[in-house]
């Protein structure tokens, strides 16, 4: 048992099916109440869609798993109503340091720009993240969250999936239009549907130790290659809340996991690292091997795979839960439009298309980091050490040091939902890009762009002066709000003021919006409910906006 955390035990309630007997039909069932399944269920409920969420256990993540949650995941968690709780409890950090043998060779800043709401990363034990998400889900009447409900069989036809669910009181059947498989790396749904997951296991083992101690090391990520206290291997140190420190020791493939887990082996390793006199207690110890793999297709007719069930990465880069949360972010608005019959079912193929691409990028980056951290051949080791020996003095070599490329969102550059630029723009906010944040002001009140722009399609029209918006422009914008999938029009203005027609005005108080979005008078951005850019223009033309909208919801 952990000394700093007591696992909640959530109540199992006998399901209505076992009382009433009849098989029910649901619109959406999510299997797995890990971070990804919870995020998906909350998002659906916030959009007004009832959702059944099944989990085979009755508590949150056991043991030490995910700890680092990146800026983009925090922005999604903000949208789901738990961002503040996570950031308040978590340890925010932006600096990573890398050591080779005795010396620091390199350090990096995660966030190179000022004026973003969220930090580059927070550290937070996964059980806290899940606990906050469960609390949020329980606040939403549309989430029916059932603990100790284990899916034991699944089959599907063209228009529904049928599940058998095992509970302490027996087995029941249910039917659902859509099934979201969020049941983790060993996905039983994947197995029951006879689907493959392809990739590779890395031939190395890592000891993961959580240690409780009082230490005044700064809130930074420290990574050692070949340190004097753990020769020939790597070590990673992270600070978590509650004075818990995560230490990862690379052990090599030959290590015996059962032996290495014993305190008599773990404690000397930690003592060698910290120096002999520091007091600490072991909170959790486990030994892992890591894999990089994914399913070929994330959509199989009525079943949509998300999170670790769909893809699994090594943890160097913290791309597991971070990318899973982005899967849910990408899927749910699409599924909701399909359920409301406002978009064709093929829109769900774009979920698979976009998130398979993101998974490939995550897998590529994690595979590269793993190769650098645990070189697979002596040639690879020689190059690795050569890079590290040059990194202290030569900037080009610093750029090659790869102790984990930490989770950043993918730019969905080639997505079929994007409308390509037809005019010239500078900067990063190309169609498919996740939106950059910016500080704004609305009626004298400070707010963040990403808090103002979310959950629905929006058209951000940049103007110098709100009052100067003329009648023709207003008339041109009118059809957007009335489209079947409404587009909310907002002015982002260089100066504050009142716009005609009651249009909402966001003042670009620090000028960051104009800078980051290369905006000038007349520039318009169509943005998606998941805060990605769909299309952009230099002038406002509602015909073009409606065409881009149709494309973004798969109606082309």
């Amino acid at each position, binding site marked *: 048992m952990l000394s700093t955390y007591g696992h909640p035990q959530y109540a199992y309630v006998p399901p209505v099916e076992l009382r009433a007997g009849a098989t029910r039909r649901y619109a959406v069932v999510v299997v797995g109440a890990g971070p990804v399944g919870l995020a998906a269920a909350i998002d659906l409920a916030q959009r007004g869609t009832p959702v059944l969420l099944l989990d085979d256990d009755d508590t949150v993540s056991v043991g030490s798993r995910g700890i680092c949650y990146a800026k983009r995941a925090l922005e999604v968690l903000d949208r789901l109503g738990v961002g503040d709780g996570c950031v308040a409890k978590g340890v925010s950090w932006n600096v990573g340091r890398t050591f080779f043998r005795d010396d620091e060779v390199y350090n990096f800043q995660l966030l190179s720009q000022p004026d973003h709401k969220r930090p580059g990363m927070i550290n937070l034990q996964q059980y806290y993240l899940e606990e906050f998400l469960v609390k949020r889900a329980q606040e939403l009447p549309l989430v029916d969250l059932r603990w100790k409900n284990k899916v034991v069989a699944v089959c599907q036809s063209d228009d529904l999936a049928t599940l058998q669910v095992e509970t302490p009181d027996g087995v029941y059947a249910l039917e659902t239009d859509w099934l979201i498989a969020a049941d983790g790396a060993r996905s039983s749904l994947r197995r029951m549907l006879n689907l493959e997951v392809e990739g590779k296991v890395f031939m190395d083992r890592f000891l993961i130790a959580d240690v409780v101690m009082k230490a005044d090391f700064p809130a930074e990520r420290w990574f050692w290659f070949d340190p004097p206290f753990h020769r020939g291997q790597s070590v990673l140190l992270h600070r978590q809340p509650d004075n818990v420190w995560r230490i990862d020791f690379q052990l090599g493939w030959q290590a015996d996991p059962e032996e290495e887990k014993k305190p008599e082996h773990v404690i000397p390793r930690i003592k060698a690292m910290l120096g002999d006199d520091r007091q600490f207690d072991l909170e959790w110890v486990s030994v892992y091997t890591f894999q990089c793999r994914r399913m070929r297709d994330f959509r199989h007719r009525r079943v949509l795979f998300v999170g670790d069930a769909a893809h699994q990465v090594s943890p160097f880069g913290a791309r597991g839960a971070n990318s899973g949360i982005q899967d849910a972010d990408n899927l749910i608005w699409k599924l909701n439009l399909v359920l409301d019959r406002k978009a064709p079912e093929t829109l769900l193929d774009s979920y698979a298309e976009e998130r398979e691409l993101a998974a490939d990028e995550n897998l590529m980056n994690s595979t590269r980091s793993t*190769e650098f951290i645990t070189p697979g051949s002596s*040639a690879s080791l020689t190059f690795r050490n050569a890079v590290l020996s040059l990194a202290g003095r030569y900037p080009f070599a610093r750029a*090659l040091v790869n102790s984990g490329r930490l989770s950043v969102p993918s730019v969905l550059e080639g997505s079929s939902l994007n409308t390509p630029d037809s005019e010239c723009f500078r900067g990063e906010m190309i169609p498919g890009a996740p939106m950059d944040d910016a500080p704004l002001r609305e009626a004298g009140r400070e707010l963040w762009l990403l808090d103002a722009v979310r959950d629905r399609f929006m058209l951000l029209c940049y103007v110098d002066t709100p009052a100067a918006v003329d009648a023709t422009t207003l008339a041109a914008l009118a059809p957007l709000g009335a489209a079947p999938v409404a587009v909310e029009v907002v002015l982002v203005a260089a100066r504050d003021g009142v716009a005609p027609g009651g249009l909402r005005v966001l003042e670009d108080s620090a000028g960051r919006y104009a800078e980051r979005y290369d905006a000038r008078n007349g520039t318009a951005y169509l943005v998606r409910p998941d805060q990605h850019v769909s299309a952009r223009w230099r002038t406002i033309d509602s015909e073009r906006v409606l065409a881009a909208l149709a494309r973004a919801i798969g109606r082309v």
Partner: protein
Amino acid sequence: MATLNTAANFSDPDKRYFRAFSPGDDFYEALIDAHRELSDAQSALLNARLILLLANHIGDLNVVREALSIAREDV
């Protein structure tokens, strides 16, 4: 006189990069891939050939000499 460039310098004209670390990581992956399934002796030979090719491409002996001397530091 030209001097050795030790700033990060990898690029790919056919590709748009979104992250500063990506071009260097592309290079490093290609380098490690080139050594796959080679014995140590074969790897050493590959490295020697690679250095000869790249040195000839640079051409300017002042630059090559500077690189040689940095490469030898602390070895």
